[in-house]
């Protein structure tokens, strides 16, 4: 069961037995939790429900995370303690400061624009004809891998000179040429190039925002909408005073999820510019330092910085949590 399966049949058997094993383990845990009664039963159930998750996270994320924090105080080879030097580098080196600036651009622009577009679209197509087809179109980019996405956008941003019989390959430049302009090398000019890369991430994430928010809109009770309509609320008023407040928790969830996904993304930058022309972000720099430059310490420190950048998002969510509990 734990050996290598190399025929299709063996693979399927292994998968099914893995699932059965999982179900059996969960069954035993729940059964035991159910046997505990009395005052402590709440804690026993909580323990049973949380233990598998907590154990897996402790092994799979906390241990490596702590290890990374530890490594961030060491040098490139990981054999000499250098205190905060890696952090000093990140916050003083001109290149690294550009990386931080870009990351801030990413994490501010992507979640809001992606959520905004997703929300707008969800409202626009709500209850429209062909709603499911319309949604599938926006959702499509979610189903494409980053490798696929980078080729797709290559056909948008690619540059060819305006000379002789050379034809444009990139859609953006072709549109420019049709309008009588000169083709541009979009990915070179900083900081414009960073925003052009952000567009790719927005393109991918809008589908996520749209699906979740659309579902939230559909969950608004009909009687509220009816009541508002009877009161003669305009369409915009409806959105502003009925829809938005009702789906507020969902908006927060979407913003949070996209922010974190944005902080972690490095594939887009890596495949489209390789982080050149001042487009690198912390996640890409972390990858490049750890796996390309053989600078374990600096790479680890960048990962820690990434972690610190999430703190504001976490704090905001805690306040939301408190607020919803107070209700």
């Amino acid at each position: 069961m734990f050996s290598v399966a190399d025929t299709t049949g063996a693979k399927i058997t292994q998968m099914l037995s893995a699932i059965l094993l999982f179900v059996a383990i969960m069954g035993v845990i729940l059964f035991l939790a159910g046997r505990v009664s009395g005052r402590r039963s709440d804690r026993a159930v909580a323990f049973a429900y949380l233990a598998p998750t907590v154990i897996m996270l402790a092994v799979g994320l906390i241990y490596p995370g702590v290890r990374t924090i530890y490594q961030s105080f060491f040098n490139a080879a990981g054999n000499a303690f250098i205190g905060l030097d890696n952090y000093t580098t990140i916050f003083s080196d001109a290149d690294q400061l550009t990386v931080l600036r870009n990351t801030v651009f990413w994490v501010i622009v992507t979640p809001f624009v992606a959520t905004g577009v997703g929300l707008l679209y969800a409202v626009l197509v709500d209850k429209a004809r062909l709603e499911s087809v319309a949604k599938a179109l926006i959702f499509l980019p979610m189903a494409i891998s980053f490798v696929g996405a980078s080729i797709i956008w290559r056909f948008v941003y690619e540059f060819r000179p305006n000379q002789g019989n050379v034809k444009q390959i990139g859609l953006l430049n072709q549109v420019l040429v049709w309008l009588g302009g000169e083709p541009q090398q979009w990915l070179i000019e900083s900081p414009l190039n960073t925003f052009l890369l952000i567009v790719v991430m927005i393109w991918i994430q809008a589908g996520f925002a749209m699906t979740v928010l659309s579902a939230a809109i559909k969950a608004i009770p009909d009687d509220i909408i009816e009541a508002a309509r009877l009161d003669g609320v305009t369409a915009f008023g409806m959105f502003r005073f009925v829809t938005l407040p009702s789906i507020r928790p969902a908006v927060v969830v979407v913003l949070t999820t996209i922010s974190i996904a944005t902080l972690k993304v490095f594939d887009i930058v890596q495949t489209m510019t390789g982080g050149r022309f001042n487009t690198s972000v912390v996640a890409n720099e972390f990858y490049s330092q750890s796996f390309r430059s053989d600078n374990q310490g600096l790479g680890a420190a960048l990962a820690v910085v990434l972690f610190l950048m999430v703190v504001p998002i976490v704090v905001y969510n805690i306040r939301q949590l408190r607020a919803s509990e107070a209700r």
Partner: protein
Amino acid sequence: MSIHRKGTRFRIALAGTVSVGLVLGVTACGDGDGDSGGGTTASAAAIDCAQFSSYGDLKGKTVTVYTGIVTPEDKPQIDSYKPFEQCTGVTVKYEGDKAFETQVLVRAKAGNPPDLAYVPQPGLLKQLVATGKAVEAPAQTAANVDKFFGEDWKAYGTVNGKFYAAPLGANVKSLVWYSPKEFTDSSYTVPTTLDELKALTDKMVTDGKKPWCAGIASGEATGWPLTDWMEDMMLRLSGPETYDKWVNHQIPFNGPESTAALDAVGTYLKNDKYVNGGLGDMKSIATTTFQDAGLPITEGTCSLHRQANFYAANFDKDTKVAEDGDVFAFYLPGKDAQTKPVLGGGEFVLSFANRPEVQAFQTYLSTDTWANAKAAISSGWVSANSGLDPNKLTNPIDKLSVTILQDKNAVFRFDGSDQMPAAVGSNAFWKQTTSWITGQDTKTTVDNIEKAWPK
């Protein structure tokens, strides 16, 4: 345990002695065998298994190979192992992975390395050896390398005085692609010195052309073609000895030699009259992928493109790559016609296990038998193995590459950025030269790279 070990060692020793005879025997009758080996794998049965009996009884054993060589170059690799597999009973499990260079380190560090890894950079080789998981090459492999490869090649596979990895394939980077037809029509001649190259370029400019095309975009490795340009100029202007010092940081990266080399690149690539044929202005070098950069030659919008022999794979299938075809390459000339520095690269076979079947396969890969068998079934592949017979190569660019590699006057040097510490060779060197082509001056560029060198 100890008995088992002894047995293993004895068997290796035996395999070693016998395969010396084997190799000699093959060289002697190599010509006769060549024709039958020239066919595809179907003729593998015709291979005389007696040659392989010396490797001992290895039936049912498996050797795992992990490499960055993927489709379509992986097929001739896998096929070239078939005689070995059929005769020894060993199964070679081949895993090609584009992310090899980062993944192999992860696997080695985590204690999950393959049996053999084909490492394309001496710098990475050092990192892998530093994980403590790699094992030295067996004596027989070392003997083959002494016999078939130059000392320089052996040195690239040696870390801290211990020989680990035998060379596998090789590539030649000091090449300039051109259109033979254009050269005939405009009566240009292939230059034999750097001055002639400059003169040719100027002549093309007076003929109303943008002679050179270049492109350095390559994802996270963007910039590497510029490092090759600079290394080629370094070799030509300052000579191989200075080049070695430069690579090993015995002279600073921002010294006069370095500056001169980068400026020499600049006379071509930072000259608006010279670049970027069919691709735009100077800055377009930075955003053009290296794969696309030489294609304007076939469109007639560019005349010269400096890139390695493997660039041949980028041309369409109906483009004829030959001295009398649509495109071909000439040797990027030295300072004068006598000195012939050659910049190149290649892979090295690093072992993480010393089981007899692994060592047997490792040894097989270092023989001229394998090199010739591999060359016979592939196109666009050469090796620095001196036992490789250039006359058996069918592909003109391969023939040219082997001729350059085996030229008695040629002085071969491995790609410098592949040998430098990763912080320079796979980071600052790429990044800074990319900034340089988009406008940064030479001094800032070399100063920044010098600063990035690990203390």
